């Protein structure tokens, strides 16, 4: 199950390499909205080649067949490559930041919980602390659930990023576009 309790099969991960140009995100978001496709989560960041950025889009395919979404996305001139990652054959990570109200008496419990999950305490105040956890989305779901026992003041997740696993040749992962960024990267 994913964070909102929907069955995982509804969600497909697309990693989309785009030209790093003004308005690219608007073009992608606009395409999704005008064609009635749903984005479950979206993460954007530059790649090691500053001409390109990578979007990791988790698509809710109840709204449209994945094939349509990919073919329409593929038509955007600034979209360079699209890969669909089957969850089983991808490494997925997400980051969670949460500020928790914890009086000194409770503080150690929270710190312990963070320790169990392998997270970090990144900020501490008189009666609250901010914690961080990076990991697979399901792990974050579990952590978020346990954290709810305390008073969560603020919580933010990044949406997932993903890359194909190196050691397996995933049978269900298809490289939808083979032309990658020019050799410079």
């Amino acid at each position, binding site marked *: 199950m994913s964070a909102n309790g929907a069955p995982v099969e509804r969600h497909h991960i697309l990693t989309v390499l*785009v*030209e790093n140009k*003004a*308005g690219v995100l*608007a*073009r992608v978001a*606009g*395409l999704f909205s*005008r064609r009635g496709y749903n984005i479950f989560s979206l993460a954007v960041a530059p790649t090691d080649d500053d001409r390109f950025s990578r979007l990791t889009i988790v698509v809710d395919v109840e709204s449209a*067949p994945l*094939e*349509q979404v990919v*073919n*329409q996305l*593929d*038509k*955007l*001139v*600034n*979209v*360079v490559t699209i890969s669909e990652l089957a969850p089983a054959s991808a490494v997925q990570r997400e980051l969670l930041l949460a500020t928790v109200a914890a009086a000194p008496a409770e503080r150690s419990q929270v710190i312990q919980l963070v320790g169990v999950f392998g997270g970090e305490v990144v900020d501490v105040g008189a009666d609250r602390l901010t914690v961080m956890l990076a990991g697979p989305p399901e792990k974050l779901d579990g952590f978020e659930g346990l954290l709810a026992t305390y008073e969560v003041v603020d919580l933010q997740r990044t949406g997932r990023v993903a890359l194909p696993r190196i050691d397996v040749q995933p049978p269900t992962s298809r490289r939808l576009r083979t*032309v990658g*960024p*020019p050799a410079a990267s």
Partner: protein
Amino acid sequence: MQLTGAQALIKSLEMEGVEVMFGLPGGAILPVYDPILSSSIRHVLVRHEQGAGHMAEGYALATGRPGVAMVTSGPGATNIVTPLSNAYMDSTPLVVISGQVPTAAIGTDAFQECDITGVTMGITKHNWLVKSAEDIPDVVASAFHVATTGRPGPVLVDVPKDVSFAEMEWHWPGNLDLPGYRVPGAPQRADIEAAVALMAAAERPVIYAGGGILKARAAEALRALAERTGFPVVTTLMARGAFPDSHPQCLGMPGMHGNYTAVTAMQRADLLVALGARFDDRVTGRVDAFAPRAKVVHVDIDAAELHKVRRADVAIAGDCKVVIEALVEAAAPAFGELGPATRIDKWWDQLRRWQRDVPLHYERHDGPPIKPQMVVETLRDASPPDTIVASGVGQHQMWASQYWRFDHPYTWINSGGAGTMGFAVPAAIGAKVGHPERTVWAIDGDGCFQMTAQEIVTATAERIPIKVAILNNAYLGMVRQWQEMFYGERYSEVYLSPDLPDYVKWAEAMGAVGLRAESPEEVAPTIEKANAVEDRPVVVDFRTDAFEKVFPMVPAGASNDDIVVHPEHEERAGAERLAWERLAEEQRR
């Protein structure tokens, strides 16, 4: 060589072979209008920017070359949004240059500022905001490349005023920097063979030819395929002329107002060979009831069209011309032995029966008012065979498509997907600019004419002698037809008046010849007079029957089986349907 951005822009257009552009200057685009004075490019000054866009579309549709329009920022740019949307729906190659406020003013709500790249993102194939004069040649070359290759479409290049003023070192790009843009290559051999296998096995095949045939310049290839296979061909509204109406294998237009044979042939087909067509709702009617027994071969250069509406059995992403030529070649062995005529002769018997029993029909009579279909027929018979016909949107458009005889590609200029009223007059002007030697008739409605008639002034001033036939029924006729048929004859806001405005006087005020025909016997002589005018535009006000409806008609959302034919043919069409249902029932048992 040092040039200003403005000079580089015009020089880039010249490098792209642009011979004419349509536009209207204003503040932000002013610098670019200066080098036009010394350019080889003809500029046609329009009276409204929408006119510039539709003229560029008409030019593109008639010539196959990209149409170019230029406008200023803000309202100038928003006025061309409709043509961009229209060109996007009909895959027409269009390059629009818009002025923008200076870079430093962008985002400050400056005078005549509008985020036109944002506004047009969803209705252009791509658009660019040019940030530096250095980029102009590359952006213009990219814009033309994107507009004209793959599935063609409109693009917009937004040029801030300071970028036009800035100096740059002239250069013309060798390679374009478009890492994300590719068009499909040659089809897979296996797909071609799979398609031919379906074609060879079909008993009731129909070739469903769409506008992509014309975009790919594949009319000859289509004819070769039709003649090799002996298959009947329907030509959609966007494909009229792609296969000659006078060809014995042509069934004409399918769809909401298609003829009975074309519509029913698709419904009863066991194979649809869709070539550059996109299963538009106006063709399919209710999708789940469309061509229920047909396997589908679908060829389109836009992979996103494949399986979008109808799952194809063989889907080929590729250029129509390349794919059809491959099909013709691959079909040779399978179709050589039997000969096309005998292979599906039962199907042809059926098709001929429908053509004979339920043809296009209207009631002819001698007195006024004039039947609109009769105007189209008389015009058709009085005009040279390569005449270009432009139309607006509505009843007159359907009658023009139904009753004209399209025997040549690129002679039918209309607004298909977007359904843009007011398209005819400016589009006809653009077509005439592209083909000054040909006769260009706009067949227009009175409602449509009033939307863009001011461009007749442009036509007179620029000596572009188009001819306009207004089928003046004093109504927004298609809306009136729907209100009559589906809203219990409750006519709401559709009456326009036959003589307000006075179209003859209006035409004369715009420097055109104005003529009027009020009864059937005046139609032919008036057309003759209009055809004799060569030095200026002509507008003819045909007073037509307000109560005439377009038949056949498939009501919106209904199955194509529920086609409503002319009342006179209802019985035959009904009997035909019963016979078919009985046959289907027997086959089920």
